[in-house]
Structure formats: C-alpha cells, structure tokens
C-alpha cells in the first residue's frame, strides 16, 4: 500500500500535497480492517489504554496535592524561570503549574522535595524580608532566587534551595516545552506524515557535510 492510501485509511487524508512524493494511485484500495468486537466507542483518549491506566488517571485528576498558597508560590517561581518574551508566553500562560500539580501525584517522589522546598523558601523570605515568598517585592524574590539558581556560586547554607530550584527548573522546562506553546517555541515541526529524504541541502552546506 502506498503512503497516500495508508494515510487515508487512518483518516489523515488532509495533507498538503507537497509533502508526499508518491504518485497518487487512482485505485482506492479498501483497507481491510482487523476484526473488532462491537462495543460502544471509547473516548479518544482512552483507546489503546489499559483499564487500570484510565482508572488511575481519573483518580489522580480528582485528587489535589498542593494548597492554594503552594500553587501561588509555584506559579510565581515558574514565571521567574520561564517568563514571557518576544517568542512565546510565560510558564503560567502554558499552564505549567497545572502540569506540576498533576506530575507530583503521578510521580510521588517529587512531593516531599517540592513541598519542603516551598516551605524552605517561605522561611528564608520570612527571616530576610518578613513576608512569605509570594508577598515579597519582585526585587526581593529575584534576590533570593539568584542565591539558589546558580549551583556553582551558591553558598553552603543555600544548598537545600539549590536542590529545590534545580527540580523546579526541570519541571518548569518540561511543562513548558511539552505544551503546545512550548513545542511551537522550540521549533519542533515533526509528528506529522512526511517523506524523509535526508538533511536539507542548505543545512548540509552550512556544516560542510555534502560528501559525508
């Protein structure tokens, strides 16, 4: 079966024609389908998922881990890590805090370091500025974040904060760059039917790889 026919068979007929170099075969071969038991169709996001996976996801979505105060703190931190710029929105624009709320329930090893780290942060702020992190001025917030964002220059008393911030930075980056907005920002243009014919000529030339 040619590429074009196979894509039609799975409902991907609306491709830009330039993508596929195969000739368009006129005979519309019917794709024989494997026998499928007649049941009411499952929601799209449940097809091909095991029953326990579906049940587990529902359970996780129904539960809440972070308190409203913790969520507010996470949101400010996430936007300090990935702010809006000329290319795309901020972490919270891409709903990164919601992703972090889900992932700590999904991967519980994140729970203690994040909860404890948030508390550590508030305590540092209370000592220094007499306020929890979210109530501090932007300058105060950045002053503290700067103490924990650069592992090599961090002082010994800040190391717990460094470990927390490393984790927070990782989760923020993952949450942002796996969102629709982040994927557009990073410039990933795959996950779509195409014909791979090798590295584009201009790129080969740029790296002097024409003859490798």
């Amino acid at each position: 079966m040619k590429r074009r026919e196979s894509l039609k068979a799975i409902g991907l007929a609306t491709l830009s024609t330039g993508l596929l170099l195969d000739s368009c075969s006129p005979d519309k071969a019917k794709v024989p389908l494997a026998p499928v038991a007649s049941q009411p169709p499952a929601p799209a996001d449940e097809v091909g998922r095991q029953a326990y996976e579906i049940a587990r996801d529902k359970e996780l979505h129904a539960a809440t881990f972070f308190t409203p105060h913790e969520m507010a703190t996470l949101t400010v931190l996430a936007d300090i890590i990935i702010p809006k710029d000329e290319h795309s929105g901020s972490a919270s624009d891409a709903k990164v805090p919601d992703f972090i709320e889900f992932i700590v329930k999904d991967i519980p090893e994140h729970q203690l370091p994040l909860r404890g780290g948030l508390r550590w942060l508030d305590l540092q702020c209370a000592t220094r500025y007499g306020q929890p992190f979210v109530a501090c001025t932007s300058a105060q917030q950045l002053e503290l974040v700067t103490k924990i964002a650069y592992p090599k220059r961090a002082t010994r008393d800040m190391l717990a904060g460094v470990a927390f911030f490393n984790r927070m930075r990782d989760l923020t980056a993952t949450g942002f760059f796996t969102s629709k907005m982040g994927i557009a920002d990073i410039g990933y243009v795959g996950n779509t039917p195409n014909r791979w014919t090798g590295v584009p000529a201009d790129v080969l030339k740029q790296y002097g790889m024409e003859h490798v």
Partner: protein
Amino acid sequence: MSAFQIKKSGTVYDAIVVGSGAGGGMAGYVLAHAGLKVLMLEAGPFFDPLKDAQQLKFSYESPRRGASTTRPFGDFDAAFGGWELDGEPYTTKDKTEFNWFRARMLGGRTNHWGRISLRMGPQDFKSHHLDGLTDDWPITYDDVKPFYDKVDRLIGIYGTVEGLENEPDGIYLPPPKPRLNELFIKQGAAKAGVKVIPGRGSVLTEALPGNKDRGACFFCGQCGRSCKVYGDFSASSCLVIPALKTGNLKVIPNAMVREVLTGANGLATGVSYVDKQDLQEYEVKAKIVILGASAGESARLLLNSKSTSHPNGLANSSGVVGKYLHDSTGASLSGFLPQLMDRKRYNEDGVGSVHIYTPWWLDNKKLDFPRGYHIEYGGGMHMPAYGFGNGIQNLNGLVPGRDGKMKEAGGFGASLKDDYRRFYGTQVGMAGRGTAIAREDNYCEIDPDVVDKYGIPVLRFHYKWTDAEIKQAKHMQETFQSIMHEMGAIITSKIPGADTNYGLEAPGRIIHEVGTVRMGDDPKKSALNKWCQAHDCRNLFVVDASPFVQQGDKNATWTILALSMRTSEYILDQRKRLILS
C-alpha cells in the same frame, strides 16, 4: 457440585500456539495459511495497532507528558507490561540480578521493539572454534539463510548490501538517509577507526511489493508506539491479524497458560490455562503444541509441566531447561555537539528504528575480551517529552552564550529560556549491544516457595556477568569516548568506571534474553533437536528465543522469525509425510 471445575473443550485443534509474539505469531501465520486449524493463546488482551497505537499524539495529549510512570518506555509506548507486573512476580537467587520485561498483549514485545533487524552470521552459529567458550548450534547460517530471505520478503526490511562476512546481507528496501547528528557521528567514527553503515530495520521505507494490507512508512519516527498503517513489523499487525483472515486461526486473549498436558505415552495432548478475565480454568486439546511464550515463559511452562512420563518437567530429561540464559550486554554514553547549537529547524523524525549503526569491526584475538558488539546511535530534534531540559545547569555553563562569553551554569529568566532553544537538537548518544557468553550457571528455575496470583509457580533467576562481558563494556566506553572526541562532542554523562562495571546494564535490561530451551544434536545436552522439536516429546516445539544456543551481538527478533518459519515448514512437511499427525 463444586464451584471450582476445569472446563474441558472437546475440540482437537491441529496445533496450539502459546504466545503471539515474533515466534508464536510466525508459527500461527504459516500453519493457518497452510490450512491447519490453529488455536493461539495469548496472556494479554487483543491489540490492533490500527486502533490502539498512540501514534501521532503530542506530548501535551498525555497528562504526564509522556513520562514512563505506567509504561516503562513512556506513556505512548506500545508495550502493555514492563519490568514488574502486578500479581506476577519473579525472584532472584544468591544476590544476583535479572530484570525480566514482559509485554502481555497480542504481538507481545514486537509492538514496541526497536525494529533493528540483524541476521546472525556464519560465525555466530559456529563460534566454538574461536575460543572454546561457547557451544555450536546444530545448524549453520546456510540452513537458516533461505528463511531469513523469506522473512525479508514477507515482512520487509531496509538496509544496504555490504558484503561483510559475519553481517550477512538481506533483501532490502532503501534505508533512511542519516540525520545531521548522524553525519557528524559517521565522520567522527571514521576518524576513530570505527565503521558506520546504514541501519537495518523492519520498516517499510517504500511500499512492500505484493502486500496490499500494509501501508508504507510516513516517517513519524514513532515505531515504538506501534504503527496504525502497519508500516513496521509487529507480530500483531503483520502475522496474527493476517492469519485470522484465513479463518483457520482462533485467538483466545487473556489466557495464561499453566502447563502443557501430556498423555500416558508422553506426547503432548494440549494445555491448561486460566482465563484472566473470568478466572475460570480451561483445558484445550491439540495434536501439536508449539511454545512461543518467550525465553522465560516457555522455560517456566516446561518446568511446571511435570508428569509421570516427564518427572523433571517436560522436554527436560537433560536438565538443561532454564540454563544457558543470556541477554545481550549493553552500555551507553551521551553528550552534545556544540557546533549544532542554534541549528535550523526542520522535520527530521525519520523512521523509528536506527538510521545508521556500527557492526562489530575488530578482531577479538587482538583484544582482552572474547566477543564483539555493535553500536546503535541516537539524537536529534525529537518531540519534547517529560524530562526535556532536565539538568540544564550541567550544560549551559559549558559553552559560550550568544555574546561569546561563558555563562554561569544554571540561571532563570529570558536568558535561560533561550538556552533551551539553543541546545535543542544537539544531543547525541551511543549504545553498545554485545555478545554475552551463554553459561550453564546463568539460569532460571522454578522458585519452590512462590506462586503468582493464579497459583502458577514463578521463575527464580541466577545470573552473573563475568570478565568477558565487563571488559567488553570497558571497550565500549573507550570507543564511545573516542568517537565523541573525534566528532567534537562534549560528553555529558558521567563516564562509568570499574565500580559500575563500566556502565554494563544489569542482565535482562536489553530485553534480548535467549537460550533457556536450547537446541542441539545430543539429547543429554539439549532440550530440542535442530528443528526446535523436543527430544523427549516429538509433538512439542518451541519457536521463541529459547532454542538459541549462543546469541551473537545481533538483536534476536529476525532470527526468531526465521527459525519459527523453518520449524513451521518442518511441521507441515512431517504432517505431509504422516510422521506427525
């Protein structure tokens, strides 16, 4: 009447096949197409990639963004199962380690595998003369070659004819072109004296001649999710589902086989199984029983099938069942190419198998370890998924920023956000897959103390690496570093040393376990003859990776397929000659 009773079917099938992966799937395919009435039992649910594949989903369509919480290779990976299954434990012995990956589903692990499809070579079948460390197969490459050829034509494989002595060529579709990072690898490897050739994978880079049911690859690079157009090889899409269309194959999913039943004459009469959904017990009958349950499960089944005729377990008068278990070795290293920072964006998903690889290129007589390995390469502009950007503080202090000045590692804000863009697509990774020596004292056996939730006694593993594998891993790491250096890459993984066996993965991690029901001419030293037929029970066959005497550094699937086809044709021939009924 007792509530607990065994439901016995009166139907006698021509053959029962246990398992629906590469081995079982091929046996079902060949026998059903030849007109035999075949019953296939699969321990997991029915799975059709056309309907069930998670192909073409974006990371944000998974609440965990593709993390491997419930599926070890990520949320969109096709395998149902993993290293641990709820209610189906296994144990280890003498503080040794073995990791056992099981996929419970139609097609088994072939739904998610890497599609790297290598033939074993003449030296892999007859390797005893090299150093005396390994036993020879009772068959040669020439015995298997016609079946490799037929598998190539039936299933489809890309590659190039290279004429290498121990990397036999097949019948190939064109290979995918290298990606940009792979060109750097090729160049660097050449400088390091390491050969790199196009990959060999079972992906239809062009339409498969004569096949109307399978679509050609559309280059999403997601073979691991299984393919909705059947553009790559899964036993589900390419063997079992086509075999169902003959009307001669019946598949019972969710059937966990307990044991192979034998009659007073010692011959197999069928199998007993528990239905995982209704939890009822069943017995089904056939003239021939074929095991394709996996190297671990087939050994377990035989050892659990004790009777007066077979007191040591079925096909086990030699005592070898479970022994000679071996998995490929594996070690890896990763880094990034600073010269690829800020690279131009375009779609380089390619195929989901390897675009390039390095076959074993050295002579072990000049090295301090006995057998070789091949290298698989990775990297490039992949779809960002869970873990994307992790550890940027270990990267962004290593290279100058856009202004030419070195940056301080870590950070936050617009400048950090820009770093993620700059490093995107620069990664490069390499992984060795090598020959492990099959040893009698690396084995699985029945744990006398433990049963699974169905009451079936479980496997207990005993497996140790030796210097042969550890020194090979050391050599892998030296090679990787040399290639990384020659291509101008910066290594980001911690370079593993002697304390971690040079990064040698635990036995089982490479998921190439083979050898537990080995074939041979001598019934005292082997369980099966050269046709994968039990020495002790002539209507019992094993068609998965269990019969392997000694694996080469080649991934097992293509050889499983060829051997299963060969055994299936032998069965047909024996029936024709009325030697088997």
